[in-house]
């Protein structure tokens, strides 16, 4: 336990215990990076089923581990929204102490790659970073379950708030970052058939192949019968 309270007001207010200048000079400046990629934000779901959105987290410009906690701050009342991985505690060894951190996931500093990363650890993905290359990223899935009783054609707004924090800050004000992610989920009918056709130039031979075969068979049959009949008549 740490005791800081003083009994009487004094003239000097210590807002923090600054580290020695020499030690600071030898440290690399702390870079707290919070990088995300959000794919499709417009989702569809059939009432009674679930759909899934995804947010990727990576850390190629930082030199500290980014601890990220996610929270559903907006969703339709009767819809269920689950975040995977869920909020959980991890124990972190920091400066010789074991610290409990509550997070959904964390993004460790990783190197940027010019080529797609093939050796991808389980649970991570090789993410294409626009204009820069590829990086290992940690996905978080936003699973939306809609009750069967929900009407078709309803659009539900879902907002996920992400808070990024970093350990080891001793200043008066620690640095944090936040970011919101919006998803729009629309209920739709179950699609029972889908038909995508390769375009042809007015007429597509492949499209009509079964009927062509049927026609050829019929022609051969008719021709054979005609030939047989003609032969009998001539004979």
């Amino acid at each position, binding site marked *: 336990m740490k005791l800081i309270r003083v009994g009487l007001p004094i*003239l000097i*207010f210590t807002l923090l215990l600054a580290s020695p200048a020499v030690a600071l000079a030898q440290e690399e400046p702390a870079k707290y990076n919070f990088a995300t990629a959000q794919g499709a934000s417009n989702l569809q779901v059939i009432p009674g089923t679930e759909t899934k959105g995804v947010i990727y987290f990576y850390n190629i410009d930082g030199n500290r581990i980014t601890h990220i906690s996610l929270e559903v701050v907006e969703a339709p009342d009767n819809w269920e929204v689950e975040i995977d991985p869920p909020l959980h505690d991890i124990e972190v060894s920091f400066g010789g102490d074991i610290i409990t951190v509550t997070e959904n996931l964390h993004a460790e500093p990783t190197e940027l790659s010019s080529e797609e990363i093939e050796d991808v650890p389980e649970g991570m993905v090789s993410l294409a970073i626009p204009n820069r290359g590829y990086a290992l990223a940690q996905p978080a899935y936003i699973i939306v379950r809609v009750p069967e009783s929900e009407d078709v054609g309803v659009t539900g707004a879902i907002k996920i708030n992400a808070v990024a924090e970093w350990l080891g800050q001793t200043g008066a004000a620690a640095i944090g970052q936040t970011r919101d992610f919006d998803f729009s989920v629309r209920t*739709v009918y179950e699609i029972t058939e889908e038909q995508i056709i390769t375009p*042809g130039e007015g007429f597509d031979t492949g499209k009509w192949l079964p009927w062509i075969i049927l026609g050829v068979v019929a022609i051969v049959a008719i021709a054979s019968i005609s030939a047989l009949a003609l032969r009998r008549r001539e004979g």
Partner: protein
Amino acid sequence: MTKRSIAVALALLLAALAFPLAPSPVMANPGSQPWYLTDFTSGADYLMDRGSGNGGAEVTITTTTPIVWVASLSGTDEASNIVLDMSGDWSVTLSAKGNKANATVHIGTLSGGSFTSKGSTTQALTANLQSWGFTVTTTDHSIAAGDYLAAQISATGADAVIDVLGATNSDSYIISPTAAPDYPGTVTISFTVTDYGSAGINFGSLDPNTSDNAETDQGATFDTGSHTGADSSTVLIDSSATFQTDGVAPGMTVVNTTDGSSGTVSTVDSETQLTLASALTGGSDNTFQSGDSYIIQSGAVKLTVGAETNVNCSIQIKGDALAITIASGTADSGSSSTTLVDADGDFVTNGVQVDDIVINATDSSTATITAVAATQLTFSGGLSGGSDNTFQTGDAYSVREASPAYTIDIGNAKWDTDSDVTGATAMTGTYAQITTSTAGSLTEQAVWHWLTVPSGQVAGDYTGMFYYQAIQQ
């Protein structure tokens, strides 16, 4: 086989080829996306649904009024999230009819209600409904964030009727080029806060606010030494320094402690030389003279939006109040939503009192203390505002004094984008915009902070949290 039978067979074969009866499905190119024309409308335009779908009636296009179809999903307009280049060969399947009519399919963008064609192909139609397959090549087909992919069909010669039912013929649809990015695009944002002090926002030690309105900036000392070069008001030379290795950066403050002057680093020329943005000011001679001592202070945090960020962003700041932590530790077995047990605690001796605030740092819940014992705190109202509102074994906690004398309101903290406190903005608990960034470009912004301590404030270590964010505009 006779000549007659052969002729009959050929005639039947030709008839089979000429009058096909029904289609069989095949798949589209992988990596491309289809949009199906519908007869559902959005304002003056029709919708084309991404992925699947069709309409309930035919759409007639007169020779005087082209029709625009705007990208949608499940019947709702779908704007591009980011800048997307959709140039390339679009595959078009058009089920249509129109005696002596020509249908021209344009593919392009819709912005502010105006359609712009990026490529087109004209197809001659017939009186009978038929599916036509052709390509529309678009060039310079860049869709800005917030704008829409769109297609327009115009008719010449006679009215054209577009079949969007797909009942007897194929649906009418367009398929994006295989190499085109996925629409509406992945939003990527990378935001880095560089803290030169490696210790959070560091205000050092402050006097209480009196008539002199005591203030200090985030003045963590970053590097020290003495000037070894010729006299200069803008160039600092220290033959023993390792400025680049130490991470000295533009925006940091150099203080000539010998004469009391200071300036801002403009460039780090080498391991041993810095150039200031302007001449030293505020000192007795405003000159680096041989032997003058200097210190370099971080002065600011640097906010960086990475070049991969593909949307325009607003860079913002907010803060929590700063308060004194009376006690901290981790919860032991026996803790709950209304009690905190810490066998290592010494709450009474340390001065924890009723009405102080206990904070569960693990789940971010808080409660007002109603009873204090040596190793146990009780808060009968229960924890609230957190994810589980319960102290579980191992949860981190802190206790803060509820009295205003132990809390510095966030409005006493200020920020600015230069090192002059004049014109600095008071912080609040809600986000305020610092600056903006442009999609696809690296953006760097230094931010300085100051803190004023209100009079009557109790001495101690005050801590809080400053939040920064880069969000899509």
